[in-house]
């Protein structure tokens, strides 16, 4: 794994961007672009990044950014890639940087189309599990029992397993990452540069606004997501599945930290502990954790 001192010093996420305090999206963007080193065109649909990149006429990112409509990120990227090809440029990376709403929900058709066409691009879904930008409404990525402004008493369904949907398109490289592990994230972007063809990265990133936790605790929550088994770090290079070393330690449910540690840090789950611990709902949440492990391991190994 890359040592922090080996990462390029050049910053592509500039000072003065409009992100909230504690925004983990900036952590993801910062390390992604350090790995890609500038030869990239970034396509951004409606999402937090379309706001936090800063306001016209300024730009908070030192790379070309093409904003596009909510459901059109992968289609727009297809056009960018085709134009580069038409001009004989086969080297510039075309990268979509989309939220969970723009990926799981409204943008899934365009994503599916671009993957099926074997578009040579990298699609990144940075997943804060909610429509954060519009004021925290539920998305297809919102976990079971999480409170949002359209699920006031907690969401009644678990999240869509987008990775399985994407994997059915057989991308050349697919990974999950987590902003609590930025060096791992950096390595995965470096690796993405090696494989021509459709690539998909799914980044878990806590959102202090939507998840309702103190802004300095994003990394702790990200780590707990892995340590409780809730988030699984893995990669898939073609057919080859690699369970991330951070997650391998928690494959055995016995070794996982209690899920309460993860849930209790977040206001969006506070109703699960008031007035007393809701055994049934927390059990359901835990069951989904194991269910996801089972499905992922069954599908990929």
């Amino acid at each position, binding site marked *: 794994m890359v040592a922090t001192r080996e990462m390029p010093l050049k910053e592509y996420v500039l000072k003065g961007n409009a992100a909230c305090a504690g925004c983990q999206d900036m952590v993801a963007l910062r390390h992604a672009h350090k790995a890609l080193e*500038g*030869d*990239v*065109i970034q*396509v951004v649909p409606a999402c937090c990044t*379309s*706001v936090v*990149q*800063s*306001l*016209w*006429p*300024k*730009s908070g*990112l*030192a*790379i*070309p*950014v*093409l*904003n*596009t*409509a909510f*459901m*059109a990120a*992968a*289609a*727009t*990227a*297809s*056009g*960018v*890639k*085709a*134009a*580069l*090809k*038409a*001009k004989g440029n086969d080297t*510039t990376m075309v990268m979509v940087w989309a939220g969970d709403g723009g990926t799981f929900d409204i943008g899934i*058709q*365009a994503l*599916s*189309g671009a993957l*099926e*066409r074997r578009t040579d691009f990298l699609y990144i879904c940075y997943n804060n599990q909610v429509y954060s930008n519009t004021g925290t409404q539920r998305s297809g990525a919102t976990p079971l029992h999480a409170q949002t402004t359209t699920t006031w008493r907690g969401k009644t369904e678990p999240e869509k397993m987008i990775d399985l949907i994407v994997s059915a398109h057989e991308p050349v490289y697919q990974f999950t990452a987590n902003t609590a592990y930025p060096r791992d994230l950096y390595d995965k972007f470096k690796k993405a540069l090696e494989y021509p063809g459709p690539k998909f990265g799914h980044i878990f990133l806590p959102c202090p606004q939507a998840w309702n936790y103190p802004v300095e605790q994003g990394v702790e929550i990200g780590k707990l997501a892995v340590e409780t088994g809730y988030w699984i770090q893995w990669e898939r290079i073609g057919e080859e599945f690699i369970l991330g070393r951070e997650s391998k330690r928690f494959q055995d449910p016995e070794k996982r930290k209690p899920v309460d540690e993860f849930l209790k840090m977040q206001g969006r789950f506070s109703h699960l502990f008031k007035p007393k611990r809701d055994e049934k709902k927390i059990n359901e949440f835990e069951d989904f954790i194991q269910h996801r492990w089972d499905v992922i391991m069954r599908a990929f190994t």
Partner: protein
Amino acid sequence: MKTELMSANYAAARSVISARVEVVAAYPITPATTVPEQIALLNEDGFYTGQFIRVESEHSAIFACIGASSTGARAFTATSSNGLLLMDEGLHWAAAARLPIVINNINRSVSPSWNIHVTHDDSYSKRDTGWIQFYVSSVDELYHTIIQSFKLAEDERVLMPVMINSDGFVLSHTLSSFDYLEPEEVDKFLPPYSPPHWIMDPANPVSHGNIVFPEYYQEFRYMMHEGTQNALKVYEEVEKDYKNLFGKYFGGPIDCYKCDDAEVVFTSQGSIAAEAKDAVDELRDEGYRVGNARVRMIRPFPVDKIRELGSHVKGFASFDRGVSYGFGGPVANDIRASMYHTKYRPMIKSYIGGLGGRDMTVTDIKEVIKDTYKAVESGDLGPEETWHDLME
């Protein structure tokens, strides 16, 4: 230049070769389908050497064009009806991003009920997106107007996208001769696209589409309005060049036939307008002083040309093959609005018909023109709006 015999859709597919389009993204919909089919074949056979993206929806088609144009490529798509409606978000986007994309919309009725024949409601409903809109009457005109449209759209004074509308089946699937230009010939007219405003380029990173607050937003919209309005003047230059180089001229934004001494002019868009020439000739033989004003461009609206006509005719018989529900014929209303601040008061009668592909024959058109003629002669306007051939 060599003469070919093809349908409008086949000719449109060939315009993509002639204009050296770099990226096409399209999704099939009747009656536009044979455009992407032909482009695919021309691509696979090595005649069209640009990129062809076989997208999974019209929404993706227009946004792939937006991505391509944003990266400095000349981009084209073709669609119809519901496909154009699905593109709506992208149509607004392309115009506001000032991307000179060209669309061939093959006019088809909007559903329900399913009807694949011509009505202009699809493109009329996109009138206020900022796109320059042409309506053409022949295969030859379609082919050459597409080539002209890239020049018009890419002009720094315009930088707005262009939609060329051709009637479903009547043009799209009907064979007619047209004069094909090799790309080497078109090179003299149309240089490679070189964006004068902004481009996605890692060597010079810029962001496009960032948030703009109320203190600036309106100015961007004003500039769009200016760009679209400039298209009238710029198109004059484009047509002049084109005529000098290839001897082709289609009559400007309004193609007038026997209008100079006419008391009544018939206005219409699309293929009816070609039919109307015959109607005018027959009516002239019968002693009526009538003319045919074929409206080729509805946005920007050729207000000056309408005013010039309105200053010497006594009546307009304005025919719309589409409706603004609750306010009638869109072009008829634009003609009325254009005349309001002049001292001239010709009668402006609105006719709606030919919807869902219902045939509009020379006899039908003559009936419409005569109806206005009668109103002019009697001095009694009669109904402002008439639905032609409407069942009781």
